[in-house]
């Protein structure tokens, strides 16, 4: 299941705070679809430490789209490339 999160109108570090909060509520098979106006480079090391996978691609309504899921969640993992080919 996709959880959409638009952080494009938020001031740093609120996008990071909201993304980290949203990750905690991800169930098996879920992934986060984040709409952002900048590339959130500072959150990547945190995601890495948490065992979270991500793909950032330019585009979408605000400039960047980020897909975030648990590394060990193969069901969520399988959904990402199907919906959004790399």
């Amino acid at each position, binding site marked *: 299941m996709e959880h959409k999160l638009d952080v494009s*109108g*938020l*001031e*740093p*570090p*609120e996008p*990071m*705070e909201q993304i*980290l909060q949203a990750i*905690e509520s991800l169930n098996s098979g879920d992934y986060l679809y984040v709409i952002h106006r*900048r*590339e959130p*480079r*500072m959150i*990547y*090391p*945190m995601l*890495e*430490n*948490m065992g979270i996978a*991500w*793909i*950032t*691609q*330019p*585009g979408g309504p605000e400039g960047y789209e980020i897909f975030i899921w648990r590394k060990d969640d193969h069901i969520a993992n399988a959904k990402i490339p199907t919906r959004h*080919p*790399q």
Partner: protein
Amino acid sequence: MQVSRSSLSLEQAPPISVPFRFFITAPIFGLLAALLLLVYGPDILISRWAPATLALTHLITLGFLGMIMCGAMMQMLPVLAGSPVPRVKPVATAVHGLLTIGTLALVAGFLSGITGLFHLALSTLGLGFLIFIVAISVALIRIRTPNATIHGMRLAIASLATTVVLGLTVGAGFSGMTSLSQLIPLTDIHLGWGILGWIGILVIGVAYQVVPMFQLTPEYPQRLTGPLSWVLFATLVIWAPLYLAWGSGQLPKWVPDTWILLPTIGYTLFAGTTLWLQHKRRRRVSDITLLFWRTGMILIAACLLLWLTSLTPAAKNQPAIPLLLGIWLLFGIATSVTNGMLYKIVPFLAWFHLQNRQVALMSMGKVKVPNMKELMPDRLAQRQLYAHLATLLLLTLAPFWPNPFSYLAGLGLGVSCTLLLLNILQATHRYQQVNHELSDFESSR
């Protein structure tokens, strides 16, 4: 479709003590500047060449602005460009120590006239800036795909190097170590490169990133960001020999004075664009940093008008005008902008380091990391903003009515810097508290 997995590694981000030691020292130098105003009063505003005035100027430029800009640059390079400063901890310790000793010695040298203090000041400041410039240059050169901010930083560092070399030269001349035939023109060129080069171009380069990011404005237009820093730098490169030619009697003064209008217009264009972008911002909530920046941007345009006024025959024998120009440039613009940025940088860094540690320890739900507003409450920042604006008003009146406004401005500056120091210390204390809680959590596992 481009997919990005690039990231900022945690090892690249310098420890929080690196920028914070600079940020805490800055308002202490501001307090010393306030003390100087209170002690010397109207005497400090007779002429910009008075030793106490030069001491005051350097407390603001080296002590306040220099500290914040050096600390912020060491922090920003890895964050904004993914290029860490090499050996950042020893570099920060050396630069901070040498600049602190050098600034104190220079100020004491100006006030006492003791040559030995100038020797100490010039050697420590020279070495401190040399280490800083080399370390930052290494980080800047390593960046493969520079954007407008990086170009701005490179030109700002080149301007700093020029400012320092000129500063050491006129410092040696001022203290009698060497005899200089063009001491006054060289001092003005040192000032020009310091304000319009190092401070101005760095502020512009950083603004391209932080204004859209923190103030939620549209991006700066590329037709401005592409050429502006280069044009400003080039105008200074040409202005310096024109000014020296005036100094040696080969050119009339109006030639370099008219030429310097070019960078001034460039800065006014930047200020106008920033105000327009702020007007177009997405989130129309009151923001302390934005108000500090708005003050600075309005004063850039005011400085252009004041400079034009200073060129009229009626203003020729009016010493208050160059003093006011200096006050607006250094306090009204540079201090407003850097002070305002601290209200984003300080809580953001504290939050970022705590959040990183919390994630590394997997202590979510066990230890609460405070958000930005909890680390730096708006009411505290707002109180300091009002003190800063009141000081700016008093300093604006002081060149015209030195008594009593120089004393009142000193008082205002003292209050403003005390509040700024307390606000930074308060955020630091909150950071340490939560960091201890995280350490307790770590040891209890």
